[in-house]
């Protein structure tokens, strides 16, 4: 048994360590805190959005150990030791990530609320390496809802980055 947080109903916390956007963070978290709420409520990393809190919209997408996941369905305590990259971590020294720049250039958003999730998802999708055609990009990006309906431009932006080979 590695960790036992104690008796139920107690306000027990568990010590965890996360590398978030390159910075090692040692944190005490309650086991019921999701990674999303940890980022938004405790660490003021509000770039990661809560759209549904149930894995049905993709606004909360972050990269955990390089893989895109819905941070709303991940308990922070279970990610102990993981590396987390959020939208804030994609920008390096004030320079936009190629996907961020392409989203601006292609007007791949309107209200902007789903945008960090779209971009993190696209980064994860490109790293996965399974999507190549527009049809495949559309399918692979279907876990990120954009109610403003910017899908056409989102696919344009992603395709642009994939073709230029600029994505890290």
């Amino acid at each position, binding site marked *: 048994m590695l960790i036992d947080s104690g008796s139920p109903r107690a*306000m027990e916390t568990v010590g965890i360590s996360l590398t978030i956007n390159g910075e090692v963070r040692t944190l005490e978290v*309650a086991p*019921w*805190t999701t990674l999303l*709420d940890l980022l*938004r*409520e405790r660490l*003021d*990393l*509000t*770039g*990661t*959005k*809560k*759209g*549904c*809190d*149930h894995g*049905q*919209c993709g*606004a909360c997408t972050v990269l955990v150990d390089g893989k895109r996941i819905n941070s709303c369905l991940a308990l922070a305590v279970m990610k102990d030791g993981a590396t987390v990259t*959020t*939208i*804030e971590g*994609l*920008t390096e020294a004030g320079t*936009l990530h190629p996907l*961020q*720049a392409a*989203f*601006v*250039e292609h*007007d791949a*958003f*309107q*209200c*902007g*609320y*789903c*945008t*960090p999730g779209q*971009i993190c998802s696209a980064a994860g999708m490109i790293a996965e390496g399974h999507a190549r055609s527009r049809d495949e*990009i*559309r*399918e692979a*990006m*279907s*876990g*990120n*809802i*954009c*109610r*403003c*309906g*910017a*899908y*056409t*431009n*989102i*696919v344009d932006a992603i395709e642009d980055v994939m073709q230029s080979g600029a994505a890290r």
Partner: protein
Amino acid sequence: MVTTISSTGTDRYVGTAHSRVDGPAKVTGLAKYAGEFAAPDLAHGYVVSGGIAKGRITAIETAEAEAVPGVIKVFTHENRPRTAWLDYNYRDAVAPPGSPFRALYDDVIHYSGQPVALVVAEDFETARHAASLVKVAYAAEVPATDVDAQAEFAYDPPKKRAGIKPPPQPWGDATAAYEAAPVKLSNDYRLAVEHHNPMEPHASTVVWDGNGRITVYDKIQGVSNSQGYIAAVFGMKKDEVRVLNPYLGGGFGIGLRPQYQLFLAVMAARDLERSVRVTLTRDQMFTFGYRPDVRQRVSLGADAAGNLQSLRHDALSGTSRFEDYQEVVVNWSAILYDCDNVALSYKLAQIDTYTPADMRAPGAVTGVLALEIAMDKLAYATGQDPVALRLANYSERDRTEGKPFGSKALRACYAQGAERFGWERRNPKPRSMTEGRELVGWGMATGVWEALMQQSSAQATLTSDGKLVVGNSTGDIGTGTYTILTQIAAEVLGLPMEDVTTKLGDTDLAEAPVAGGSWTAASSGTAVMKACRKIAADVFAMARAMDDSPLANVDFDRVVFEGGRIAVAGDPSRSVSLVDAMTAGAVDKVEATESAGPDSGHAKEFAAYTHSAIFVEVKIDEDLGQVRVTRVVSAIAAGKIINPKTARSQILGGVVMGIGSALEEESMLDHTIGRFMNHNLGEYHVPVNADIQNLDVIFVEEEDKANPMGVKGLGEIGIVGTAAAIANAVFHATGKRIRDLPITVDKLID
């Protein structure tokens, strides 16, 4: 000054494509939304939603919740602080007639999902957990939520909603003309209830500033509306309430009215004298406004060539028990088509739900859907091409108001849209076009929306470093307002866009209305233009007064503002920089606040509408009822386009929501318990990326004089008619005329 905001071809910023000025903030996650602002000692509220649709709360047990460590207080109707008494105080700027809903007011349950308690705790998770421990007992009554079943109680709303034109008096004799018409069509139509579902759930962060003052970050399409509401409900002075909302994570109409989380957050903050945030869950986003359930009948009488001889359009719309929500559903029919015998009606029926809310092109989405499917039927009934039929009945004036259109390039929309789409290659026979196993359908429809302008003010400040700040209190709801106002301001004062900052969504800024109705570009744009022109005039005066001024004897209407300088038109060698003029004038800033409103003289003479022609291709696996929208061409006539890039996005977004309307979106009511059951994004289906293929937008520019900018607005027109064009394409593909949308699998394999 030589005016450059026109179609003269001299525009530098206005009329050209620019990336969003707020883009970098949005793609880096730095743009903050209402529920994301931090405050010292912030408490978190979680709403407990009621489970019955009608009845009373007989007991509400909060002790267990209150016992959870970290819980600060549980608010219910039994212990809520006193607020205003009269309905009047709860009626926000866009409220329909009636008694607005009051959260935690008493023990009466008006609808399913009604907030019955607010748990406030030190952290979000504690509030959420404690909320699950609040136990509510009810004396339930049988709800009525089926509009059809309430049809016998239909009524004309006694009080009309401000800004919503009731149906005009009939003209001619629609009944007699229908009876006499060689071709008669009369059918019922329905569009399912839809929920807006902006990606950002409603949230309010109320920062307790001390001494009874609060700063509120509210999810709202116009902060002035929230400010006025809070002041009236809580008996506060407006200067004690500052409301901000620099970014809105989607509105589509559900952000027009202050919603109950705002009331609850302010109530709790005032009671606890500390900062409180209340964010609703996605499921709770189904517990207030929605696009109403409207039952329609369209009856068309025509001669054998398809010329309309009689037009009837009747609508019965659901509303709540407490407010008479109204929208324009039927008038569009008589605005779009020229007919001498017209009768239109619009009635309400009450059901036990929350009040419906304006949802993107409210009324037009619903009414034009029915009309344009009916017109497609008429085209088939008379053997006319659908475009030709519309041209044959083309209206040169708005007969509901008896006015010609100030501009109406709809003919060009039909022509350009049809050409781009390849409409002439269409074999009109249903089921005649196939590709492999799939049936191919080509359909079209018309769209129409009002071109509105509202009284709006704006401020501008030019500082002696050559930087300009403009703004007002309206919101950028994703439409691109930050960007176009920046373009307009840069254009007027001849500054690089990088030197212009636009501020929005703050009641400390010049007052402007909510962002809705597609009126923001015209209203705020004109106000910003006027404020910048005032600054231009002031700085010009300083420039002319300079010693040995190169502009000494030049009139204002002979200069241009370009590259940060004021120059004589046609003689750039004679110029003064704005900075030098201000230095000479011994000022470190020049400020102006200007107001702009609709030109009532023009409006008296001319009707102002945007129009569209939408062409759609669907491919259908008939056997399995699977529809794919493979191509959409949307040709839009909406006056002057300020920014083709963001304008196109607005139309794309409208088309996507139209695809959702046509094929996917449906809030399903269980009438036994009076509750929307698919209250989440997993089961309420909005389009995903895979649903959207090739969308093409054409702008047909128009010269319109309704406002100095010549703009008409784009937020709504992209959705209107889209669902009808899809339904018509489905008919062309399959021969199935589906008049009950969305067109889901079950209806296609039937």
